[in-house]
């Protein structure tokens, strides 16, 4: 009897974590992990344009994808999109975090304003920019017209009509919506630095810039890396900005791989899944390279 009671108790003890963690594991398993399996499977299947499965496709979807004449440009554009947006965001965030870490009257209210693009829907923020860039009456053009820089309805005023200027503006929007999170992540990092260190440096006669470079920056590294990594993932997967402002067009000339995946999905589910698989693997590779390059383990330990 006691022995049986013992095993029963052991079974309950082993099952206890499952009771508490089970729902979380089930939810993540069904909603986050299983779609990855379905995604990989779909990339090897053959579909009709209206979505009927008609059998296996082998590697045909990937072959079709690599034969897309626009793919090269899309890949290069995606790299530019991620690198430029994340780099500019992180640089500006360093400055913003430094500023908003100082005490000044009204800082709280100013910080509330900083949060707006984080809280607001990116879809709606992007639509405001699209409206503000309207070539005939958009407020950006009204402002530039007042400065004598553009003519209404001219080619220059049609910012979203030309691929290059459209892409630059979309990068600006992407930086704008990424800044609040990055700034707050760096603010959190700044608060972990003991003020005595700067005090000591000042007493030693170090200039503020020297103190910033030798104390703040090295100690801010972990927060900076986390923020940069999360930005890389977010910016790579970013869809609404491009979708709302140009739809990826003209043609695919302002698409990134995420937008291209969505465009393909309308009629070529298999090929879209293939693009998605590549996106997914790219994210994983980028994360791993990033972790390795920044010697993540050393940071954590």
């Amino acid at each position, binding site marked *: 009897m006691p022995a049986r009671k013992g095993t029963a108790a052991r079974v309950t003890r082993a099952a206890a974590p499952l009771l*508490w963690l089970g729902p*979380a594991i089930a939810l993540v398993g069904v909603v*986050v*992990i299983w779609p990855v*399996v379905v995604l990989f499977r*779909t990339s090897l299947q053959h579909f009709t344009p209206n979505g009927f499965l008609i059998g296996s496709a082998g590697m045909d979807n990937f072959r079709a994808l690599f034969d897309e004449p626009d793919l090269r440009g899309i890949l290069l554009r995606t790299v530019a999109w991620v690198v430029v947006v994340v780099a500019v965001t992180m640089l500006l965030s360093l400055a913003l975090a430094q500023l908003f870490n100082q005490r000044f009257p*009204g800082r709280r209210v100013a910080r509330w304003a900083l949060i707006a693009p984080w809280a607001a829907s990116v879809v709606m923020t992007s639509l405001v920019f699209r409206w503000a860039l309207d070539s005939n009456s958009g407020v950006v053009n009204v402002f530039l017209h007042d400065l004598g820089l553009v003519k209404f309805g001219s080619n220059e005023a049609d910012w979203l009509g030309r691929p290059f200027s459209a892409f630059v503006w979309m990068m600006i929007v992407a930086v704008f919506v990424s800044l609040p999170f990055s700034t707050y992540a760096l603010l959190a990092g700044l608060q972990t630095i003991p003020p005595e260190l700067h005090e000591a440096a000042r007493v030693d006669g170090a200039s503020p810039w020297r103190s910033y470079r030798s*104390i703040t920056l090295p100690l801010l590294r972990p927060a900076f890396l986390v923020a940069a990594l999360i930005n890389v993932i977010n910016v790579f997967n970013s869809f609404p900005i491009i979708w709302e402002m140009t739809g990826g067009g003209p043609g695919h000339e302002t698409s990134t791989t995420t937008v291209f995946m969505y465009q393909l999905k309308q009629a070529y589910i298999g090929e879209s899944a293939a693009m998605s698989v590549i996106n997914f693997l790219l994210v994983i590779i980028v994360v791993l390279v990033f972790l390795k390059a920044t010697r993540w383990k050393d940071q954590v330990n």
Partner: protein
Amino acid sequence: MSATVAAPVPRSEATGTERRPSAPRRRSGRTVILALFGYLIAIVFLLPYAEMVITALRPAKELSDRGYVPKHWDFSNFTSIWKTGFGDNLKVSLQVAGGATLVVLLVALPAAYYTARHRFRGRGLFLLLVLVTQMFQPAAMLVGIQREFLSFDLPSPTLSLILVNAGFNLAFAVWILNAYFSSIPVELEEAAMVDGTGRLGAMGRITLPLALPGIVTAVIFTFIAAWNEFIVALTLTSEPSQRPLTVAIHNYIGQYSVDWGHLFAGSVIATIPVIVLFAVIEGKIVGGLTAGSIK
């Protein structure tokens, strides 16, 4: 870490008193410049949302005017928008965000509490799962989500959206709640249990109230993320009345023209309360992010 940066410096009285006379004056000049910069940046960050409100209040016939503000202010977009089915979409958004938040709380609270309080086999694996899934985003596996939920054939897309949003926001909630629970000393709970309260009583009376700031942060983050989610909602909904606001806002974009007045009136209704909600927890964000990154 601090040891590598600076050796402790003996602070002499002299340096302390020497700098005192000039410091306040210089600091006040510096403060003014800092404040001006701060306000300028605040204004830049609010400009797009000001333009959103201004356009929503612009009379239709002034939409192509080239002035920063309309000649007349017109509130009719905010009344007529309810005749365009906007109420249905607002309801869907509330259901999706509210439902996802509720599911996340119900699922994340026990998981976070248990991992914070117990050492067990598989704990590391579970936390790794949470960490890794935090890097997964629906956009990267959209086709998989679409085909999976197509095969589930749930009675309404709202249910699918609740599940998807709950799943993708769970990791963050577990992470932040775990950090909060870990920071609450076990002794507090044990003391309550000694006083005759059961384990659940101790949890309800001691731990949950102490973790409330973390719970509020997790709730608001989840709610806002689900409220603003776009690409999955765009993919899983087809009935106009079953779409949440981020997708439904496109009803005002026609083939040849855009009803900017209603579009931005809807955007204002969808955005401004959320910005206010987020501002409410502004003070907790820094703490939340610190807890999230240290763990």
